[in-house]
């Protein structure tokens, strides 16, 4: 539905071509990535229905060789003004996904020694004693953590510090949104969220 909507909007408004399309015809651009990789990514995006730009209820950005979808501010305001049970459920799923992504980041950071633990660390980097998790949920997300962040190029699972830093910056607003108190209160027993209404 989204693609149809965007396609029709593209056709009707005659939007300018995406910067990615313009980028394709510049073979002399210096690059650190292999040419074959870059071409494959570019072809993928040039074939895509989605074009970066500001739409009625959505923003599509392409900071690098990827597309980021974000609802415009007014949509978020309207959505969170009236919190429906479906939204609460979706937000809970989002929290679970963000927990998975956070664990994946930490595992990657540790694997490449991007951050070295101090004598007094007291953070989620620690995996011992007081800081160890034993929950089923943690075991589940920890197992698949290696595959979560390497979305840029699945053939190259090894991340560099720079890769992790830029991936983290892309998720910054997602991490910030994990502290929405009104939504959290609805999750644990607010009105209209029966599936999540647990006795305390």
């Amino acid at each position, binding site marked *: 539905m989204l693609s149809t909507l965007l396609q029709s909007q593209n056709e009707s408004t005659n939007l300018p071509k995406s910067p990615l399309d313009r980028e394709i015809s510049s073979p002399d651009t210096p690059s650190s990535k292999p040419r074959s990789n870059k071409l494959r990514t570019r072809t993928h995006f040039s074939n895509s229905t989605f074009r970066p730009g500001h739409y009625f209820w959505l923003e599509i950005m392409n900071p690098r060789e990827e597309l980021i979808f974000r609802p415009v501010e007014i949509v978020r305001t309207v959505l969170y003004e009236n919190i429906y049970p479906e939204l609460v459920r979706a937000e*809970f799923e989002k*929290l*679970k996904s*963000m*927990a998975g992504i*956070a*664990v994946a*980041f*930490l595992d990657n*950071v*540790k*694997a490449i*020694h*991007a*951050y*070295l*633990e*101090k*004598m*007094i*660390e*007291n*953070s*989620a*980097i620690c*995996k*011992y*004693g*007081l*800081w160890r*998790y034993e*929950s*089923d*949920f*943690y075991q589940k*997300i920890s197992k698949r953590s290696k595959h979560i962040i390497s979305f840029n190029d699945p053939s190259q699972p090894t991340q560099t510090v720079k890769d*992790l*830093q830029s991936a*983290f*910056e892309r998720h910054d607003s997602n*991490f910030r949104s*994990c*502290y929405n*108190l009104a939504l*959290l*209160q609805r*999750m*644990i027993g607010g009105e209209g969220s029966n*599936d*999540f*209404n*647990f*006795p*305390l």
Partner: protein
Amino acid sequence: MISISPYSILTKLFNSLATKNEFIEVVEILWLAIPTLYKVFSKDPDNAAFFASKGINCLNELKIIDEKITLLRIKLHLFLIGAAISAQANLKSLQQTINSESDLIESYQPEISDSKLLQLIKFEVLFSRVLLEKRSEEDLNSESNEGLTRILFMLTNHCEKVLKGITCEFETAKLNVWIWEIKLQLDLVSDLSFKQKLDESIITFQKYKTLKLEIRAHICLAKLYLK
């Protein structure tokens, strides 16, 4: 009229409890991982403490009664201590942070029933206090034998005693490295017992992939051999 069977009530109750557990498991991972990620990646050192405090505020507002949530609160207060140490805060503000956070941690401890967890929490607080003592010695530019002896006394008489009787290889390894570093400075190496202890520490650090601490242990071992 809609009939409600006992089975449906039980199913609903089970689902609610399962969801509660799931919610707590998600939150306990997420709200410690997010401040940690900001500590690692953010250019602003205050961001990590900001998100830890935000997590504590949310937990206070949510008023969930569960031991795991209490433990998360304690971890977040310990995180604030760690963040203040990492941010190289000045001695006075570090002292204030450690004192106020330790008081809060102490107030939550009665809610924890697991004795091992309680001992580990106590260890972390004491360990921070030793570091505070060390920082005050450094700030006074003294690092005198008297000061180092006091730090060594705190490590061996307070921290080491807390860890006795519980299995906690990593905490013991950290403690051993610090003890032997100070013994080296004080020239208190009279036997070869350090070798075995530091070797064990190195193996533990390798197991947990803590490279910095492993290097620190190797340096300590090399210095002790050269004595």
